[in-house]
């Protein structure tokens, strides 16, 4: 484990370095408080630190205060190691944000034991962060496909619409529904249906840019938000995404299945930047128009009543089997 030693006294520094190296630590040494703050602010910063109190540039308690003001990093366990031994100093040191306090000259066994305490605390923190991240992921993602869940994709859509309105740009909404998905479930069972949903999600993610959003909107419905999307190329791009779903069979436990999707497509710029729920109603209508037009195609939602067909020339070769 990495550990930082900050001490302006070369002799103390060397003694600590050697003691900790012998105990298996990876040691980084600095001679003043400012260097200590910089080191503890690195992306790959040590999580354990032994700080002297009196140092040039910034003293040990000053380092603690600066580090504790930052909340964007993993917790660093800090021990003040100093020859200031009054109770007032101990209290002031701990109040500055140090986790522990040791008086020089240190006893080697005590120092090692206190560092092991620090490691236990850091391990506990890691487990808490891991649990929090897992909960955060579960709260924001669909458990089956690992796409954004409905609540999050709606929030992202609202945010993107506001941004494109502010910047006079355009956002494309793609609402897609797997064709004849019910018959996949009825014929092959829900486990195979789940395999289809997962693979469709994976193909959609591969087909979009890293900064676009893909979410599971409902059972077999997916919402894709193409950010900052050029209105002219939005529809062809949307249809490429649709084509990428059905361009080869999906391998399942029931064998390869030909799957297609129907898409409603809406370009926010065409609609004068209306609210998300209104746009969703319109794109939903366009998606049902694609279904009515024979499926495996995309329909563009337009403010006027007409909707533009977009049926790929090769569609007949990609009709779903179910």
């Amino acid at each position, binding site marked *: 484990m990495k550990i930082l030693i900050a001490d302006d*006294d070369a*002799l*103390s520094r060397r003694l600590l370095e*050697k003691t900790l190296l012998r105990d298996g630590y990876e040691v980084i040494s600095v001679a003043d408080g400012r260097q200590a703050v910089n080191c503890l602010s690195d992306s790959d910063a040590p999580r354990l630190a032994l700080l002297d109190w009196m140092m040039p540039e910034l003293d040990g308690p000053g380092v603690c205060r600066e580090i504790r003001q930052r909340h964007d990093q993993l917790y660093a366990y800090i021990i003040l190691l100093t*020859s200031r031994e009054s109770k007032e100093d101990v209290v002031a040191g701990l109040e500055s944000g140090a986790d522990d306090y040791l008086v020089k000259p240190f006893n080697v066994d005590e120092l090692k034991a206190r560092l092991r305490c620090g490691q236990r605390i850091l391990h506990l923190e890691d487990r808490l962060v891991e649990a929090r991240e897992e909960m955060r992921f579960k709260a924001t993602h669909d458990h089956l496909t690992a796409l954004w869940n409905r609540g999050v994709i709606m929030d992202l859509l609202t945010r993107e619409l506001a941004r494109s309105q502010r910047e006079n740009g355009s956002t494309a909404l793609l609402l897609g529904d797997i064709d004849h998905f019910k018959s996949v479930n009825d014929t092959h069972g829900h486990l195979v249906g789940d395999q289809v949903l997962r693979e469709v999600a994976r193909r959609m993610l591969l087909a979009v840019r890293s900064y676009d959003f893909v979410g599971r909107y409902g059972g077999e419905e997916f919402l894709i938000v193409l950010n900052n999307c050029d209105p002219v190329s939005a529809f062809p791009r949307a249809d490429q995404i649709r084509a990428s779903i059905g361009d080869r069979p999906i391998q399942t436990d029931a064998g390869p299945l030909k799957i297609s999707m129907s898409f409603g497509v809406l370009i926010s710029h065409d609609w004068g930047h209306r609210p998300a729920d209104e746009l969703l109603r319109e794109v939903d209508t366009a998606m049902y128009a694609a279904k009515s037009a024979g499926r495996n195609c995309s329909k563009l939602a337009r403010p006027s009543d007409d909707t533009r067909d977009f049926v790929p020339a090769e569609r007949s070769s990609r009709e779903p089997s179910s």
Partner: protein
Amino acid sequence: MDSPQSSASASVNLQELLNRVDNDRQLLHELLSIFKEEFPGNLRNLRVAVAAGNLSEVAKLSHTLKGTLSNLAVAAGAASAAALEHAARSGDSTRVQAAFSDFDKTVAGLISEFEACLAEAHPS
């Protein structure tokens, strides 16, 4: 193993010092080399600060020396440095002069004592 009990110095507790470095005589040599290099300069700076009545500097330097000497198991020297630091923080120049004089006497010949220690504690 050498016999650390037969220390040549009344000031340096060689047994304690060897415990502190986990009986690593190579490290002991390294630490004493650092001490020999840095101590004369620190003592000189301390003397200048005392003469100039720069009590904050006296407090800082005597604090550093207190840490160094305690790391090297020189209990009397560390205690004398602590008394000097305390006097400097109290702001009493007269006490500082007296405490420095005491400290100066305590650490006189310390480097020679360490040389003797090194002779006793050959690198393993």
